[in-house]
């Protein structure tokens, strides 16, 4: 785990500058089934390949952003602020 991630605000930094925030998940709705909530709590796909992930620049600007990373190569293809849907 020594690859670089580019914070959309600060630029390239070593991965230990950041905190991993998990994959981007869809949160179930207020009235959704408990089963759906259970899988939202505990079940992760752990995809081998491209994944959209949350990252927090804890040692820098202290902002969350989204990175698209290949979990098999640790290649980060693109990073952007949430809401800037790329």
């Amino acid at each position, binding site marked *: 785990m*020594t690859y670089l991630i580019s914070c959309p605000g600060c630029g390239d930094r070593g991965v230990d500058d950041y905190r991993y925030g998990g994959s981007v998940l869809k949160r179930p709705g*207020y009235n959704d089934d408990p089963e759906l*909530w259970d899988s939202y*709590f505990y079940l992760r796909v752990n995809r081998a390949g491209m994944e959209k992930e*949350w990252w*927090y620049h804890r040692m820098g600007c*202290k902002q*969350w*952003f989204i990175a698209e990373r290949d979990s098999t190569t640790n290649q980060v293809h693109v990073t952007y602020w*949430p809401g800037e849907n790329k």
Partner: protein
Amino acid sequence: MAKRKNLTQSPVRQGNRIDCSREIKFSYNGRWYQGYKGDTVASALFAAGKRIFSRSFKYHRPRGLTCVSGQCPNCLMTVDGVPNVRSCIQPLSQGMQVEHQNAWPSLEHDIFGMIDRLGKFLPVGFYYKSLIRPKLLWKIAEPFIRRMAGLGKVNLKLEHGDEYNHRFLHTDIAIVGGGLAGLTATVEAIKADADIILVEEQPCLGGTLRHRVQDIDFPELPGLSAQEVADKLAETVVSSSSVSVMTNASAIGLYEGNYLGVRQGNELVKIRAKQVIITTGSYQIPLVFDNNDLPGVMLGDAVRKLIHYYGVSPGNKAVVVTSDDNGHGLAKDLAEAGVEVIAIADNRPKPDIDHSGVLENPRVPVFWDTSISRALGKKHVRGIEIVTSKEASEYQAPLKLKCDLICISTNSQPANSLLHQTGATIEYDKHTAQPLVKNTPAGVFAAGEVTGIHDKNLNVLQAKVAALKSCQNLGILRRKKQLESLIDELEQLEITSRSLPRVHCSQTVPGISDKRIVCYCEDVLEKDLNQAIEEGFRDIQILKRYSTVTMGPCQGKMCSAAAIDICARATGTDISQIGTTTSRPPLEPVSLGVLAGSVHTPLKRTPMHNRHVNLGAKMVQVGEWLRPHSYGNVWSEYQAVRERVGVIDVSTLGKLDLKGDEAAPLLDRLYVNRIGNLKVGRTRYGVVCSETGVILDDGTISRLAEDHFFVTTTTGNTESMESWFKWWSASTNDCVHITNITAGMGAVNLAGPFARDVLSKLSPIDLSNEVFGYMGNVSGLVAGVPATLMRIGFVGETGWEIHFPSEYGEYLWDSIIQAGQEFGIRPFGVEAQRILRLEKKHVIIGQDTDALTNPYEANMAWAVKLEKEDFVGRGGLRKIKGLPRSNKLVGFVMKDGTVPRDGDPVIDKGVAVGRVTSARYSPHVGRGFGLAYLPDYLAVQQSDFIIAVNGLESLAVIVDQAFYDPEGLRLRG
């Protein structure tokens, strides 16, 4: 201490590393010796006549200098108290204390040497097989085995202090290895103005050019000797301002993102390089034959280093065992150094063309088509046995010769571990018997002998191409044409070089003895490997794990080629199909101190820190903060708060400022309580839970304006709450500005029956109950300082929490103390606060809760508003509420005079079923009291339960309400 009178004089020597005008005195096993500046511990000891440098791991066989390059385990010594130092690369320094290890009483006479003769009873997998039953057997045997096996001993008393450091560097190109290829690549890259770091593990640049001193034909510097070529290139490199050269620096790992770890002395240097060129070269490896680890058997390059670096004579009568021209050059070196070369045993068939004068040294008989079958001698080489590989031979076999030095100059192994780590494709090439680098990942290049190609002209070309390609990647290449023509030239040369005949010398020479060492580190014998393979461990990976071959300190550098050779032969597999054992960082032994570096834990001080210190407070570390534990007397601090007035520094509270139209909905979402309906000027206590319903934090929320909130978090959770708040804000994409103002704001809590009197002396704010009631907040001046005041029930008395800009900390503190003088004010510390708050049954997050606690267990069910619209944790809490509760946090008072400690167990029927989370003596109740988790069936109101206090069972009774002022009249007063 060593005795000076035993000083051994060493003769003046001629070596390119040492400076004979600067003597260095050091002690070895209590006697003083002398070396010169530039010597290593080993070269000085060798010059002083020492030949045995260590005893082997398992059999305690004597071992001498073998590689003189820090690759093998044979010269490990304890230097200045640090065990397992490779003495052949450890620079000598004045007054150094050197000791041998793993032998008693001395290396020359080691009692444990008898184990060598018991070898038959110590087969491979010995521990796994023989000491299994009865179980007691292993218990008895283990301490003995541990004492006899192993290397140096760690000196637990040794103080290291802050001498370990980490350093971070950034560069365009990192070049690892400062030999011919590395220097050439550096010179090329300089021309393109790249920023370069050159990492070299030796004290000087030049690599093999410094000890393999035959002439080389270097196209750009014709007619120069190897030394002169090295000097010329090194000069260009060192004088360039765009290169920083690191010597005595070994690369220990190359990680993703071209992150290169380099150990330099006690420093770990972490280099982030845009491009990496690996030019780590190759190193010679030993052969397996009878008695192959006898002191006096040395690698050819080791001998050359002793001669050329340190000016030490490696022996008197030498035999060179070789399979290439390199060995003949070595013979010349030896002769020039005054060593009598008895013979050269060359593995190659006698050449058709007469090479005499070039290859054959006329005075030295060359035995073609032969190899060494045995080293003769007990503690040192006294002779050699040579065998021919041909059936019908012109020599009588075996041939015995007398000598005291055997130089093994046969096979070389590319130092390609770094490349392996990057995931480069490396394939075994049958034709050259070398692992060839086929492909490297983007941004990583290899050049020189590390690629498996041993041809100086090719290596130079490779280096130039690698440098230019790196520059191309960096976008700074100006000479595109040149790169193209170099690539063409390289391809041409590669084709011609492939057609040249090669001789590969087998890694093992058949023999008869028991002691044919494959792995020096772990004393693994050839027969051990054969036996393991017979037992079914046929795959190199499991063969390694079972026999421990390649698993010692040298990480397989010396033995993996031989192990693969033996494995291939014994299993009838082609070498190229065997694969290799995985090479992982670190490439060489690195002390844990270097990896850990020095400890730089940040310590935070509050704005009033100096006041506490001046008042004689006992400071304690709470998370990252220093806080006053007490100012001397906890009980009088307690008493002041309950009876008069007290003030405490609470600047360590986390403070978040939230602004924006969507701040209220965000807080409603983050807290399990209702926040949205909080009125401006009001403050509320709130609980934050995770999605699964675990308590994360608690604190106060104050609404300063419609769109402006001020939130406090517990001291230790500031950072995590900041990121938690920001994540929810980001993921819902709302418009809230969240600012962590913890460091910018100081805070005190002023509490007690006279708190209002003190504060009204300092502030124009109306503090009356009617205007500034309980759980209200007001912004205004205190002692002229702009502040936000919150009236909360912190310790259960009338009180205000005052937040103000940090800069005013000492001034405000002084003002409050002064104003409170007439009311008998006292500052109180965290210990008094703990008791005061515990009497109010306040739960401390992280102390009375853990990573699984939910509000229903921790008596916080009242805060959870499941009926409000969606919030974080609702799903989890809804589920938890439907399940039977297993534990409950209850308040208790002891029935006897005991006071439990935090963490004491709750006992039911002799079994621990719960635990005390907080306990103290309560001045109010007059007994020990606190909070404890009980299983739900025990948590019945007013019933008794048992706590083991100091191991003795004591009775406690459950108390449902707060211990002090349960109606909360005092804090509202």
